[in-house]
């Protein structure tokens, strides 16, 4: 009898632990989604600003072409190729801003200021997203999560590569 009760309690605790773990993982997936939504919206805004810069006086025709192409690629990339495309846009912006800063007039100056504020935010957003993703991947790799398939059908979060090279 005693062993029976003991086993029943053990089973109950185990079931509780499983639901607890499932909630935990669900929460992590949710965190990844939120941080990605945030990062995505910031990146979209950056692409829009890049297009505006391409049309403005700062950009010469050649760099305008490069910038426009990079911005469109960044906008249309699928999630797996996103970070590569965004790095391309960072590179294009970096090339232009390296020598274009001096001739900026008020309108362009405010555009550039907006871009630099946005870049600061993107840097933080990437850090938050990367942390959420690594955490989720780490937890999903644990024995209990794999054995009991606690992740269900949720896709494994994609690592976002570029971290420090945003401008």
């Amino acid at each position, binding site marked *: 009898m005693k062993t029976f009760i003991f086993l029943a309690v053990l089973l109950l605790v185990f079931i509780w632990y499983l639901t*607890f773990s499932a*909630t*935990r993982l669900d*929460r*992590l997936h*949710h*965190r990844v*989604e*939120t*941080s990605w*939504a*945030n990062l995505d*919206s910031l990146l979209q805004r950056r692409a829009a600003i890049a297009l505006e810069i391409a049309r403005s006086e700062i950009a010469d025709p050649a760099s305008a072409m490069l910038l426009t192409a990079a911005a469109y690629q960044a906008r249309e990339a699928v999630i797996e190729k996103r970070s590569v495309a965004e790095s391309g846009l960072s590179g294009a912006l970096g090339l232009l801003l390296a020598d274009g800063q001096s001739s900026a007039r008020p309108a362009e100056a405010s555009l550039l200021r907006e871009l630099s504020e946005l870049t600061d*935010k993107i840097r*933080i*957003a990437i*850090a*938050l997203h*990367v*942390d*959420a993703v690594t*955490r989720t991947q*780490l*937890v999903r790799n644990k024995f209990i999560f794999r054995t009991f398939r606690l992740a269900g059908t949720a896709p494994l979060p994609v690592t976002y590569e570029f971290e420090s090279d945003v401008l």
Partner: protein
Amino acid sequence: MLSRSLKIGIVCPYGWDTPGGVQNHVRDLAEYLIAAGHNVSVLAPVIDESKIPTYVTSAGKPIAIPYNGAVARVLFGPIAFARVRQWIAQGDFDILHLHEPAIPSISLLACWAADGPMVGTFHAAAKRQKAIFAIGPILEPVIEKLSARIAVSEAARETLTEHLETDAVVIPNGIYADRYRDGVAQEKWQGNTLGFIGRFEEPRKGLSVLVDALPIISRFAPDVRIFIAGPGEADEVIKSIDPQLRSRFTFLGRISEQDKADFLASISLYIAPNTGGESFGIILAEALAGGATVVASDIPAFDSLLDHGRYGELFQSESSTDLAKRVIDLLRDEKRRVELGKAGKTHAQQFDWKVVADQIFSIYEMSLVGGEKVRLTSESRSWSKFLGRESKGDD
């Protein structure tokens, strides 16, 4: 920048009416956010409930436990947990900002009980501790609920990555830089004077290092005087000083903000001989903002605050001889001393609340993207129901 008005819940883990860096930080942040038009509620342990500002809610009386080389006044237990849950349920917050969620106090309880947008700020910088690795598996599922983590310094961030394997965004502690900007130099504090502000009785503040350095300093600068401001009993310290040098020490007690600004503008050098336990060094940032030239020990927090010596002189921590040497050099080199002070003053502007609160607020905005509110976790709700403790409005 601070666009829409939010309902923000801030949890302070340490006793509200005991002095401390975290408490000051929470108070200043809360008041800054209120002034910016937000609706802020702070939950904190409180000793005397009659003396708290209206935005603070008491979670009960704090318990004193030894932690990280000092006595920490924290609060936990079933009653505190019930109060935390009630505060969350009634607050209807857009976001929770939890301070020090990794120490056993109400921040941790709030993190356990809540679901939704949460930001955590980590203040402490501690050496590797075995105990933390042991409790890591318990903390991990709780800490990972935070949608963003903030560390107040590189040292705090390293502590966090080492102990809990998670990264954080570094946002420094805030100061009201303009309070210290326009101090008027007072003659009584001028000359070859050294200043020290802080709870000088605590060994980790390192006053004894300065006391031991004085015999050497006074040999080269016979007219040197030392002013010590801050709360505490001076008698014990005076006994430890060589009787011949006692006349050079003046204890000012606790001084007002205005006096502090004048004090920092007057003294030749500000000395920060702390031997450890410091994560950011708020008083050092204030000294810089007041235009004082700073000589500080090379503990990690100060080293990064002063950018490896660019904005103030660093000496080998706990070495009185090195401190004496640096002080004498600077007292002799007027030009360099003034230059360091000026550079430091400009550097300190980035710690102003205007800058810091904006950075914190943009972290809030990032955590709010999901568009949900803070609520009790489902587990916590079903447990409350099970125990018949579901809070129904006011108690």
